């Protein structure tokens, strides 16, 4: 602190090693390299295998369809990532999607504009996330228990509101959203891409992002440094809820109706994508690109197996095998 003139050589010694990059071959021999890039390696591997086994896989139309199909899962995986980064888990994610869809359907059916319906759907799911976070932090109840509870509660609420009946949503806006495209990609893909960009910036380029990782890594230490860890956690769950709302809009657009059905594979796949993306389930380590690519990989897996006419019985097995394999590789993470 006393003699700033004296700092140049020392600064150099402190910063020097980071500039020297390891050689490519050293990189390829390092298991932690593979661990950090598991989802990318997996995706590339799948693309090569499927591309050889079934050329249709690499057709532009199929790749476009694949991206379109992955949009919902990508958005959900981002939401799940924020929660997992705080060392939590959001089991109510798929139920929140269902709830958001029902709110959207009912508000629309009640004669309000589709935009109002979409906004209210996102508000509703964000509120669910906010509540999750509030109960977990203020009530000091494990995330697992709370989100399991909300899962059940909002399922019930969704059934009550909808009377168990699907609601048709014949909006041209949503139809365009689902089937229209800009440039090479369909609108849902653009939605997913925007979500990835915004989330990436939030995680890596804002104070919130650092505080999120600090809270997930060592909550107590983060708190001792003045980070409002409860607020950070509540924010993470709210973001997860927000993502569920966006996913609900994409879902209603895609299937044309709001249904009181919970797609459990969305929840499981969101967690799987997060794991594939190299996010630590113990919190503190996260990326956005990783889970997004993980989601893409899971979708590509189903798409490729379908094109290869592999029976539906084998598909969950393949997904399970890949996730466990990824978890094993992850042990070599830096």
């Amino acid at each position, binding site marked *: 602190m006393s003699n700033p003139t004296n700092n140049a050589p020392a600064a150099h010694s402190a910063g020097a090693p980071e500039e020297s990059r390891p050689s490519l071959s050293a990189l390829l021999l390092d298991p932690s390299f593979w661990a950090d890039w598991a989802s990318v390696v997996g995706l590339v591997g799948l693309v090569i295998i499927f591309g050889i086994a079934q050329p249709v896989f690499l057709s532009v139309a199929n790749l476009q369809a694949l991206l379109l199909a992955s949009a919902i899962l990508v958005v959900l995986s981002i939401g799940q990532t924020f929660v997992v980064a705080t060392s939590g888990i959001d089991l109510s994610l798929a139920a929140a999607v269902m709830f958001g869809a029902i709110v959207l359907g009912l508000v629309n059916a009640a004669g309000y504009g589709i935009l109002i319906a979409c906004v209210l759907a996102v508000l509703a799911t964000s509120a669910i996330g906010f509540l999750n976070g509030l109960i977990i932090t203020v009530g000091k109840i494990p995330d697992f228990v709370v989100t399991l509870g909300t899962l059940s509660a909002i399922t019930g609420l969704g059934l009550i509101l909808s009377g168990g009946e699907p609601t048709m949503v014949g909006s041209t806006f949503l139809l365009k959203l689902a089937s229209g495209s800009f440039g090479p990609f369909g609108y849902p893909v653009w939605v997913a891409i925007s979500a990835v960009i915004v989330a990436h910036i939030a995680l890596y380029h804002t104070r919130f992002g650092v505080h999120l990782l600090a809270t997930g890594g060592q909550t107590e230490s983060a708190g001792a440094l003045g980070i409002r860890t409860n607020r950070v956690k509540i924010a993470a769950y709210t973001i997860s809820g927000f993502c569920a709302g966006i996913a609900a809009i994409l879902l209603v657009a895609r299937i044309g109706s709001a249904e009181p059905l919970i797609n459990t594979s969305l929840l499981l796949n969101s967690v799987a994508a997060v794991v594939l993306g190299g996010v630590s389930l113990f919190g503190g380590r996260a990326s956005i690109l990783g889970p997004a690519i993980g989601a893409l990989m899971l979708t590509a897996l189903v798409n490729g197996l*379908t094109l290869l006419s592999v029976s539906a019985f*084998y598909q969950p097995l393949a997904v399970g095998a890949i996730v466990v394999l990824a978890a094993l*590789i992850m042990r070599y993470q830096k």
Partner: protein
Amino acid sequence: MRIFNGLTLGAGLLATIVSIPAHAEDAAKVAAIVKGLDNPFFQTMQKGIEEQAKADGVGVTVQAAANMGDATGQADRLTAMALQDFDCYLVNPISVSNLVQALVPVAQKKKPIVNIDSTIDAEQAKAAGFAVSTYIGTDNVAAGALAGEEMLKLVPKGGKVALVAGIVGDVGSNARIKGFKQAVEGKLEVVVMVSADWDREKALTAATDILAAHPDLAGFFAANDIMALGVERAVQTSGKDVKVIGLDGIVDALKSVAAGELSATVAQYPYVVGAMGVEACKAAVKGKQLPAYVPAPVLLINKDNAEASLKNFPRPGGEYPDPLREMLK
């Protein structure tokens, strides 16, 4: 490098489990997508599709959703198949609308779409610019009514009956319950209706409670066989003589009827629905005009015909009308 081992292993695994459907050079190729294979009903349907395809010399690829709630996953799989060169698409959608968008490219290629078991909403299909070539399915209301008529024969007039429905709001469950209610209207007293989510254990618990609440109950109608078997277990435990009727005609239920436990079940034939779907595809590919609606057979199974049904399972115990077969002759 572990990952490479993993990948090559994966590739090998793939190679072994990929079964390229065998079919003659110029035979029609059918793409079929059904609901989740986590349910025997759809497994039987798949069997019907595959066996009929073999018998007719048609190539077929059957795909299914990951589970009964996987509406988007089913659409994704259909989208992938739509890119491939199939001559006809046989679809059993999870909901009335989840496959509509995935069918648009199919319709654009002017390939016939055969809708089986669960309907696709005609309005939405129209808005998306296509119409299905035909719908083949069982009439759930009629099936429920058959169960109701059998119940009328089994219990005294004015007797009390309880209804066990599937998942709240399920269209199929609602229709079956509706048919049953219409058949017994004014003749029997429906004291309670509960929902047991198509689940055997939930049905058992619910039935136990109902039996405690209504000691003079005469009969149960459950909207599917799985739940009926759960109810039957509760009735046996209570030691009372309460009639139980199910619906579906799964093997366990047929055995139970033959053994004198379940009073009756209304058999639907997913096997036949699947088989008729393949026939419809074959006819459509040949350029035949298909009827808009082809009813699939339903049959009441009681002690008299349970043995015969078991023997023929998953095919019906006897002859059934099949306009599509006539058409192919």
